[in-house]
């Protein structure tokens, strides 16, 4: 019989170091002895997998992972290449590079100045990205 639970009721995850751990809640009929946990590695999946998972079964492309990543600079190969960054962050970038350069010559006062400017500009950019009013809308149970 097909599993009628929603994905949220069925699976949960946590991150352990550089690994994502996915577990599945057992159904009542799978509980077994009372010492075993109420969860297990994901089960089922009818597809025969290929690539790195060749020889296994499961759900092809069954997981969608959304994450923030370090921008890729592999296409920046020469001085004439564009920096992959929003135009509004250009001045912050200049401040950061200046800050690191004066750090090398141990001018820490200037370094602090440039890094403070860098953080201020980045914070301003992050704040201004979404317009509109900044209010918290309460739900029914909030007092």
């Amino acid at each position, binding site marked *: 019989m097909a599993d009628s639970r929603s994905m949220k009721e069925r699976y949960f995850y946590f991150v352990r170091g550089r690994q994502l751990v*996915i577990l599945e809640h057992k159904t009542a009929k799978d509980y077994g002895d009372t010492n075993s946990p109420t969860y297990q590695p994901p089960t089922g999946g009818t597809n025969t997998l290929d690539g790195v998972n060749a020889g296994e079964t499961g759900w092809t492309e069954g997981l969608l992972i959304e994450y*923030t990543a370090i921008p890729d600079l592999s296409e920046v190969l020469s001085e004439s290449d564009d920096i992959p960054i929003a135009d509004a962050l250009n001045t912050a970038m200049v401040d950061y590079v*200046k800050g690191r350069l004066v750090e090398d010559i141990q001018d820490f006062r200037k370094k602090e100045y440039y890094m403070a400017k860098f953080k201020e500009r980045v914070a301003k950019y992050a704040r201004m990205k979404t317009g509109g009013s900044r209010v918290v809308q309460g739900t029914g149970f909030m007092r």
Partner: protein
Amino acid sequence: MTVKELMELTGETRFNLVKILLRDALTEMQLLTNENVLQYTTDLVNNQKGYDLPSNLIQVRSIKVKNQDTEYYSPINRLVDTDIKEK
């Protein structure tokens, strides 16, 4: 902005050094703004609980599992207390 423009504005002439500093700057900005968001799909393997994350990852934002009936990916919850029983 090009790398050359950045070099002129900062007065630095060493391209490789500027590129390294650029990478550091982008990483710092990413930590503060969460600007560069990526997605990828991978197989959900029967009886396998661990999945390697990409090396350029800063933060996992959400995990979704494909509902095989509807073909839509639905979000799943993150476990807060990770002290679980294991064999």
